[in-house]
């Protein structure tokens, strides 16, 4: 970590070279600006969700009387209420709450790995990186279960009226994909797949990067290099993935 000092002689311009005005390495800066651009991508997805949702009417009745319909946007807690091994029990948002907790915990273990890296403590970096990888894999497994549940659908089909060949027919729909959606307007399912899918892909990439860092730590690459800055850079990415989930949790599941 060649930390150039930012203090310059009076009158000397900080931006004229020879010093590091942002007091951060090239790699860390580029990670920051990549994350900024990634924040724009995720904002694009989440804000478009907001637009499409605002363009649909909300369910007007009491929450207890809610049923799935194409007429209005679904209440998310009525859609996401399943938990593994507890079939048929209505536990709104419990599973997604657990997923949020898992991701926050893996962010904590990551920051502990970074702290250990500052101290050149190879054993501690290995330990915390392993916990972080485990957290990431657990989150991905939870997401796989949630996607499966969303796609397969509930026990009872939703009845939709559809206008086909000049007459109204009633269609039974179970589950959701990019063509049908039992939970409400088609856009709702599409956004579910795109937003959580894009985030899940980030988690997946993060797990791969974390594993690479773990591998390099175990083989002593960073010890020979004399610093653990790679842990910091990938740490930034991993915290960002957690940050995005905080927003997805609020704007997709809670609101």
């Amino acid at each position, binding site marked *: 970590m060649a930390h150039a000092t*930012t203090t310059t002689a009076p009158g000397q311009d900080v931006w004229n070279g020879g010093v590091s*005005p*942002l*007091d*951060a390495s090239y790699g860390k*800066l580029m990670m*920051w600006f990549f994350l*900024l651009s990634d*924040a*724009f991508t995720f*904002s*694009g997805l989440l*804000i478009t969700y*907001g*637009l*499409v*949702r*605002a*363009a*649909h*009417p*909300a369910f007007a009745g009491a*929450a207890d009387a809610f049923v799935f319909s194409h007429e209005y946007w679904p209440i998310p*807690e009525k859609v996401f209420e399943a938990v593994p091994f507890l079939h048929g029990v209505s536990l*709104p*948002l419990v599973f997604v*709450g657990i997923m*949020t*907790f898992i991701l*926050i*915990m893996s*962010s*904590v273990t*990551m*920051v*502990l790995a970074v*702290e*250990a890296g*500052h*101290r*050149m*403590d*190879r054993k*501690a970096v290995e330990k915390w990186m392993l916990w972080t990888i485990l957290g990431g894999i657990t989150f991905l497994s939870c997401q796989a279960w949630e996607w499966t549940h969303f796609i397969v659908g509930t026990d009872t089909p939703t009845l939709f009226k559809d206008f086909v060949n000049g007459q109204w027919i009633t269609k039974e729909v179970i589950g959701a994909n990019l063509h049908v959606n039992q939970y409400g307007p088609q856009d709702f399912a599409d956004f579910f797949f795109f937003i959580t899918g894009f985030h899940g892909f980030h988690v997946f990439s993060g797990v791969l990067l974390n594993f690479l860092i773990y591998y390099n730590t175990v083989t*002593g690459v960073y*010890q*020979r290099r*004399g610093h653990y800055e790679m842990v910091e850079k990938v*740490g*930034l990415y991993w*915290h*960002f993935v*957690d*940050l995005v989930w*905080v*927003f997805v949790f*609020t*704007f997709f599941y*809670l*609101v």
Partner: protein
Amino acid sequence: MAHHSEETEITVLPPDKEKIKKLWTVAGILGLLTGFEFLIAFMMHHGPLKTSVFVVMTIVKAGYIVGEFMHLRYEVKVLFWSIMIPIVFIVWMLVAFLYEGMKLSDINFLN
């Protein structure tokens, strides 16, 4: 051949108790806020007030993650602001798109 091992020269510093304690405090705050969000989801009626509470709590959580975990709070000012200022565009996009969405709703569901 002198097999000079560099690894013996590396000094491992002891854990920074102060810093680690602070990190766990932040983790606790994030966990608590998520718990509160979960409770509020069932204790408040749906409406602009509930949404505002969620938005404020989310921004507080984001502040802790970016400021403490990602260490941005302790970076030099130029770096801090070059990350923060572009966020204004996201806020503008949010305002513009939500306004547009409500107008679309007026057009689509007039009947």
